[in-house]
């Protein structure tokens, strides 16, 4: 900022005369390259990339794009992205936002996916000699498409000329900054115009299609069996999502979902319920049920953090309290109490115990403003774990069995349905974890409804008001302490609810499951991260965030000891580039990006119909 204040004419921004691309290629050839490259990418996907089946995913087959669920591989994705970069350009209706920005992202996605695969092949198999012509074609095609896409003209953002009186270092920095602005501008897109209102059934069909795609992508991701495949998957999904967002399709979709909230909820629920049927192996249902537990707790935390703005750093302890309380009354031989309550009663005990702890922790601390709550909850989380660890009869009363925990919790039996056995639904074998998956899905649905209904009511508005400006909220007659305590206790009770199911899923409840930070979610740090990563104050945000935060460490086992480091790095990057989270609350998005508008530009008129996604 120091450089453009010295002389008057340096402060005036100047615009390029004619829009040009990042690379000096005329528009015609550039577009031809982008289109041709895209087409060639599609073709390359039908060719063999390598000669040996040794590389994960088997890329040897000619003439068949691997779209089969049985043997999914990168080429399917490359095809898709190639098609996207090829197709998106022509169809104006598909890209209400910025077609060229979307094209750039799609080309980037195809390029990184293809090149990542080819590099992985070469390093895995020891040399470029292992690439078949198909591989080379893919490499060249994606590179051509990317070059073409980058050369397409775009509206250059304002830059400021260098001040000749500055020192050389300052001038260099200034040029770098300008370069960065222009580069960012190449990938920027205008806000898409609000979508036309389509006939209801078409909008619903679009939502259904989007949900089905979501399920497909998720199922594919969860089923990837190799690190390389999963990384490739992540790259493609990330850039693919960015391309869709730039094309304005994401904004349109969220407008449709806002209009059909109940349909969307039902559809999402059905799509999630369909997940166990897509898996032949109960192993993936295991991942599914753990993700659901994690996601549900994250959503509960979102009431506390996202709506009421209370920073709770020990939230996982409430999950633990619920799990311990429920496990002790569910007939475990390790429990100090010799009772076996039915599930509904165990749920009441679990949620009730968490609720009581929530009130006990909240009542003294919520009267204070500021960071006290964060510190107290952090302490509570650790105290809970240590007490559970030490109440083993040796160093304390014999309640929790110490580090052995409450073990051998019997499987649930509800109305004669034994959750431990494999059942057959419509000819599909549904194993133990899939059974619990369905139960947990029900709990998730309950938490979603609680979130939505409480958020969109007098009490929910009071939470948001307190978060926005506590003094003003008090002056509006809101009993801040009471309202915050309700949010805190409700969040705790919901975590306890999830804990009840978790205790049964994991058979054993141990103190080590409930740490502040750990490589395995759920833990307090990851829960908070899921909320922040996904998007504070939204429903889908924490669900998506939790799924990602569970899958990534789970799939990338090779990260090993660096997992937490990578996690921290990812969070820092996210906060730098997308502070509002992956699925932003529309209010938050405005809050964070208003500053990036050019001087004199007014923010886009925002008309909110409902509380957001």
């Amino acid at each position, binding site marked *: 900022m120091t450089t453009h204040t010295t002389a008057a004419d340096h402060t005036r921004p100047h615009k390029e005369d004619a829009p040009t691309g990042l690379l000096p290629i005329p528009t015609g050839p550039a577009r031809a390259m982008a289109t041709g490259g895209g087409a060639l990418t599609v073709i390359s996907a039908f060719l063999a990339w390598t000669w040996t089946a040794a590389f994960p995913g088997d890329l040897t087959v000619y003439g068949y794009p691997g779209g089969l669920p049985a043997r999914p591989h990168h080429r399917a994705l490359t095809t898709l992205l190639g098609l996207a970069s090829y197709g998106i350009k022509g169809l104006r209706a598909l890209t209400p936002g910025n077609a060229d920005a979307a094209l750039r992202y799609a080309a980037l996605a195809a390029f990184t996916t293809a090149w990542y695969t080819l590099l992985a092949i070469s390093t895995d198999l020891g040399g470029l000699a292992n690439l078949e012509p198909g591989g080379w074609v893919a490499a060249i095609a994606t590179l051509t498409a990317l070059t073409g896409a980058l050369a397409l003209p775009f509206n250059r953002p304002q830059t400021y000329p260098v001040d000749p009186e500055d020192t050389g270092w300052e001038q260099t920095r200034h040029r770098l900054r300008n370069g960065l602005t222009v580069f960012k501008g190449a990938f920027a897109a205008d806000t898409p115009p609000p979508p036309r209102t389509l006939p209801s059934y078409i909008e619903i069909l679009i939502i259904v299609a989007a949900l089905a795609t979501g399920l497909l992508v998720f199922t594919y991701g969860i089923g990837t069996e190799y690190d390389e495949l999963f990384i490739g998957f992540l790259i493609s999904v990330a850039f693919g999502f960015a391309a869709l967002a730039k094309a304005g399709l994401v904004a349109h979709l969220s407008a449709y979902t806002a209009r059909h909230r109940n349909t969307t909820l039902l559809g999402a629920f059905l799509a999630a319920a369909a997940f166990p049927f897509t898996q032949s192996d109960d192993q993936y249902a295991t991942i599914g049920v753990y993700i659901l537990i994690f996601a549900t707790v994250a959503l509960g935390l979102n009431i506390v953090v996202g709506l009421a703005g209370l920073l709770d750093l020990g939230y996982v302890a409430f999950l633990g309290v619920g799990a311990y309380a429920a496990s002790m009354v569910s007939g475990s031989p390790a429990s100090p109490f010799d009772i076996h309550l039915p599930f509904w009663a165990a749920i009441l005990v679990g949620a009730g115990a968490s609720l009581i702890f929530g009130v006990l922790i909240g009542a003294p601390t919520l009267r204070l403003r500021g960071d006290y709550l964060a510190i107290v909850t952090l302490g509570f989380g650790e105290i809970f774990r240590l007490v559970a660890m030490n109440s083993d009869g040796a160093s304390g009363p014999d309640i929790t069995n110490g580090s052995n925990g409450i073990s051998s919790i019997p499987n649930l039996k509800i109305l004669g349905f034994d959750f431990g056995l494999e059942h057959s639904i419509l000819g599909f074998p549904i194993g133990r974890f899939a059974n619990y998956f369905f139960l947990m899905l029900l709990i998730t649905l309950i938490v979603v409804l609680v979130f939505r209904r409480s958020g969109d009511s007098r009490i929910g508005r009071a939470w948001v008001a307190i978060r926005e400006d506590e003094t003003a909220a008090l002056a509006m007659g*809101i009993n801040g302490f009471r309202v915050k305590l309700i949010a805190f206790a409700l969040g705790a009770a919901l975590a306890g609810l999830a804990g009840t199911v978790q205790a049964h899923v994991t058979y054993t409840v141990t103190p080590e499951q409930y740490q502040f930070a750990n490589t395995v979610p759920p833990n307090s740090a990851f829960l908070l991260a899921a909320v922040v990563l996904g998007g504070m104050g939204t429903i889908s945000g924490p669900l998506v965030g939790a799924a990602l935060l569970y899958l990534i460490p789970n799939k990338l086992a090779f990260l090993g000891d660096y997992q937490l480091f990578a996690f921290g790095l990812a969070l820092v990057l996210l906060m730098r580039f997308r502070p509002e989270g992956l699925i932003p609350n529309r209010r938050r998005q405005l809050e964070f990006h208003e500053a990036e508008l050019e001087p004199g530009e007014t923010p886009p008129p925002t008309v909110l119909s409902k509380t957001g996604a």
Partner: protein
Amino acid sequence: MTTDTTTAGQAPDTPAGQTVLDARNVTMRFGGLTAVRSVDLTVNSGEIVGLIGPNGAGKTTFFNCLTGLYTPTEGEVRYKGAILPAKSFKVTAAGIARTFQNIRLFANMTVLENVLVGRHTRTKEGLWSALLRGPGFHRAEAASKARAMELLEFVGLADKAEHLSRNLPYGEQRKLEIARALASEPGLLLLDEPTAGMNPQETRATEELVFAIRDMGIAVLVIEHDMRFIFNLCDRVAVLVQGEKLVEGSSETVQQDDRVIAAYLGEPFEENN
């Protein structure tokens, strides 16, 4: 679960001339600094009372003492005869609403939601009612929205109900603050510099707005530096200088008072300048 959330016309049943606000001997000290010193002030129903004084005179501090944001070091404040509770949300529930000198809207809520928050004390639906969504909930919510829209209509912001309040221009933000304060159905409205940052037309419109509020049966106590605004509007004006009440009286008395001219106005105020 009570559903009688809107008492539509909401004219408080205070007979004209009855004392609404009665502040006695209010003193506020911050360490060694006495920001307000032994101030007495009454506001009667149907009145618009002005509070003027130089910067730092203690006007906002006095407001904060009235609304429970500060607990006065000495003195007591009565609203309709009852001593006010010390918590600001209870003061609002009792019937005193306010706006802030530096606008304090809920920036990331919509205009309508801001006003709905203002209705918090006059509605009762708790968490259970929100979760179960019985007919009572829907009725109360609809009534609240209707009342909020009425108020937005009243201040002229109805067409912006779904905008984020942060995106409103300054003048409209001030109007929204007034609508939000009115939503709590007060018997006394405290306005802290309601026209700061407004252009002359907007100021004139605000004048009309304050008169209309008074006609709704709400007493108004207003702080303002715009003398023409104050002297047009107020039945009575109190002058605060260095925390002490210097003069109190009708507009004419105050603008001709030598001490006020010396301490604040600087020169005799001309009605037609």
